[in-house]
């Protein structure tokens, strides 16, 4: 069944039970991946999936339901279930089906030619071969892989608004295991991209990092000057970006509530959300409710400029929506950024090291389990390199860094002049330069 047929069945079902306002979110994806172990392809997998989300307004409230099984009966059931669910909703958020924006950024869907299964196998074996050759200490247990995926999204609503986006990508990784006979360590270096151009770089980094970990010790507990690598600070942005959501502000669960146009971060902090960034595998001209997206600074030179709004929150706060409603076919509409990045600074990495003097360059954060999105507190198992007299020293691990995200934003002293990207999906990502902060609490040996 194609999207036109699905639309027709759903429209008729909605009409039959008297539903006038609704929208349909349809996504179609296919992925193929291959993995190596001991110079052979150890695993090969592919998946094709389709999902449909349906949302409707009954007596001013939204009801919703979703499914993956595309049959006439299931689609009719979807409409009935969503309408029934709406009867129990009590939220005072206004339910709005959007009539459409005047203008949508022209982001033509690039033609993406997915590599064949054979190509993926060859690439995975090539990465493995290069990984073994990159270092003498690389040993069995090493796993490498390559994959590809395409996703297409269609939105349609009862006002006739019809929107479409699609994206394709490849990904590849090297996960070397290295052993010096006494200790065994590993490392992962992965890349999401449009092509396989950076295999050599990925392999070199992976093996270099794994080798550096052999013999690594912890550090004494104390207060340290810390440079958080751009990739890792991107993870901080991903973890705490909920504080920019107008819904969290409305519920009193954002520390940034009531702080618009106030100074909340260091002067050198400008954070931007760009739905059209070239760093994304898929660009976003519209959001999960069909609103046109736009690029905006959430923090400009340390001052909070805006929150992210969907239609309901824009109505609540009396502002224009920012086009930040996010949605998957099975998940309710929420608010999130597209490509959120801390703008780069003016220091070379060597200059940052010099400013730091002595401290730690954090290149690994193991888990954000001990973080609290409401308070901003964090305590994270980390690893990285010692900074000794402005130079990179030996690798250190088994320590935590602890602090508060909102204090961190205020205390950023310097930024590197390169942007490092961390993808979190086809249409979303985070990025940051290396970030230098003084006096971070470290617990180690």
């Amino acid at each position, binding site marked *: 069944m194609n999207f036109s047929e699905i639309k027709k069945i759903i429209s008729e079902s909605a009409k039959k039970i008297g539903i006038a306002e609704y929208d349909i979110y349809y996504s179609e994806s296919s992925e193929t991946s291959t993995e190596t172990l001991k110079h052979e392809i150890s695993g090969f997998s592919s998946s094709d999936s389709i999902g449909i989300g349906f949302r409707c307004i009954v007596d001013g409230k939204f*009801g919703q339901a979703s499914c993956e*099984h595309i049959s006439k009966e299931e689609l009719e059931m979807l409409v009935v279930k969503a309408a029934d669910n709406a009867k129990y909703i009590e939220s005072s958020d206004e339910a709005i089906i959007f009539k459409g924006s005047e203008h949508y950024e022209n982001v033509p869907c690039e033609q993406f030619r997915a590599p064949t299964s054979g190509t993926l196998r060859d690439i995975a074996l090539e990465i493995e071969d290069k990984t073994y050759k990159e270092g003498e200490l690389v040993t069995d247990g090493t796993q490498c892989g390559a994959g590809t995926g395409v996703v297409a999204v269609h939105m349609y609503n009862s006002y006739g608004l019809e929107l479409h986006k699609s994206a394709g990508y490849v990904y590849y990784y090297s996960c070397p295991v290295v052993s010096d006979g006494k200790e065994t360590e590993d490392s992962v270096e992965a890349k999401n991209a449009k092509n396989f151009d950076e295999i050599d770089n990925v392999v070199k980094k992976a093996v270099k990092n794994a080798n550096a970990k052999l013999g690594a010790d912890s550090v004494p507990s104390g207060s340290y000057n810390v440079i958080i690598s751009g990739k890792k600070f991107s993870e901080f942005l991903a973890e705490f970006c909920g504080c920019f959501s107008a819904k969290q502000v409305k519920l009193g669960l954002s520390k940034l509530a009531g702080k618009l146009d106030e100074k909340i971060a260091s002067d050198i902090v400008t954070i931007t959300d760009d739905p059209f960034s070239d760093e994304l595998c898929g660009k976003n001209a519209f959001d999960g409710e069909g609103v046109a997206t736009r690029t905006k600074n959430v923090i400009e030179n340390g001052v909070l400029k805006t929150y992210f709004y969907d239609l309901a929150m824009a109505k609540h706060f009396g502002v224009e929506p920012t086009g930040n409603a996010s949605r998957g076919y099975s998940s309710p509409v929420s608010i999130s950024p597209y490509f959120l990045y801390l703008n780069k600074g003016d220091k070379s990495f060597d200059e940052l090291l010099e400013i730091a003097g002595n401290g730690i360059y954090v290149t690994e954060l193991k888990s954000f389990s001990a973080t609290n999105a409401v308070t901003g507190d964090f305590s994270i198992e980390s690893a990285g390199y010692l900074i000794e007299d402005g130079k990179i020293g030996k690798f250190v691990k088994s320590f935590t860094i602890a602090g508060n995200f909102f204090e961190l934003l205020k205390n950023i002293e310097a930024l590197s002049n390169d942007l490092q990207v961390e993808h979190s999906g086809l249409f979303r990502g985070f990025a940051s330069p290396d970030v230098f902060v003084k006096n971070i609490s470290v617990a180690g040996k």
Partner: protein
Amino acid sequence: MIDKILADEVLLKAVSGGADFAEIFCELTRTNVVSLVDKKIDKINDNVISGVGIRAFYGTQTVYASTCDTSREGLLACAAKVADVISLDKKISSVNLTEKIFANIHPVAVDPIASGMGYKTDILKNACRSAESYDSLIEQAQGNLSCIERNIWIANTEGLFTFDKHTRTRMYITAIAAQNGEKQTGMCAPGRGMGLEVFDIFKPEDIGAEAARHALVNLRADYCPAGKMTVAIENGFGGVIFHEACGHSLEATCVGIGNSKMCGKLGQKIANEKVTAIDDGTIPGGWGSNNIDDEGNPTQKNILIEKGILKNYMIDRLGSRRMNMPVTGNSRRQNYTFEPTSRMTNTYIDNGPDKNEDIIKSIEYGIYAKKMGGGSVNPLTNDFNFAVIEGYIVRNGEICEPVRGASLIGNGAEILNLIDMVGQNLDRGQGMCGSVSGAVPTDVGQPLIRVSNITVGGR
């Protein structure tokens, strides 16, 4: 969802490239999640997950394909994708499927998917109301009630043809306490492999009150100090320490390819003799329980460590081939789009010889970690971490002021030997464990234990 004749046809197609084993996993899962925010039912989401995963082995190499097209043509196309990757001599030319139904040891009294929505919203409201009325400092409570009914059909070229239905219900309440502009959170999130009768065991009012109590403790807590200390870790979700420090390293996922510190250590002493650890997928109504695993093997009670000695691993079918050891009923996956692998079910440290009060009394200065959050581990190195979400300073054998914002980190191989006191109040807590085959429900558990020396990630 699939009959024997079609299963037979699809399996033969999947092995037509020369595979020596093939398996079909069909799934029809219905989920219903009700969310409450700001005293009002905010969202209700019904979702239907349905599709098929087909897997083939040739030796220790695997091919997996999944599709949501469950028509005959869809299944055969999916099987053809699997067959096309393998180009060997044909090894299997017939399959003799025999239907086998395993006893249901997790009966459901109140079907949560079929139950009226009004009943579910009332349960959720009761919990949130209870949290909000617990104390005037509780600013708000929010939560959700999730119900899942998972139907699976499994057929394989060894002749297995089986079906299982499993139901799970969980409520997650977060309370927010506020004073002088400061806000802190507390949570309570019990769940079971049961229907709505789970709320006869966990009264919604008690769930709300516990979340509120937790938030109030954090509101008066100062930051946790940093450094190496003696730590007492309470029962229930405290078992996350074993889950991270050791459990993942005993899964065939990493043991089978040599990427675990626990490789080759069967029969060796790897933990303090007070530690006996068990993975038990058969606990009636357990959050991590099932009648069968996702390869159709009956779940088991496996003793992993007995009095400090490593006794067994957790092994799926592929791991069994790689390790030349029998499967243990631990093969799991989030849904049909994931290839299954060995995963924990309900994993816990058993009761030990020490009295709980003696454990606290034995600590001159340290931390009493009452409630824990999630964590992670690198099974290759055994380096792990997890969050303490409710903690207290212990001074001269007494539990003193609360502290917040800490994680505990260590190395599993070392920490297992540093668990030097094991108490007697075994209980389990519920979590979602994320790994290569997706997020699966797992219980962690233990009685109160003492770790003589561990890094506390405070500030």
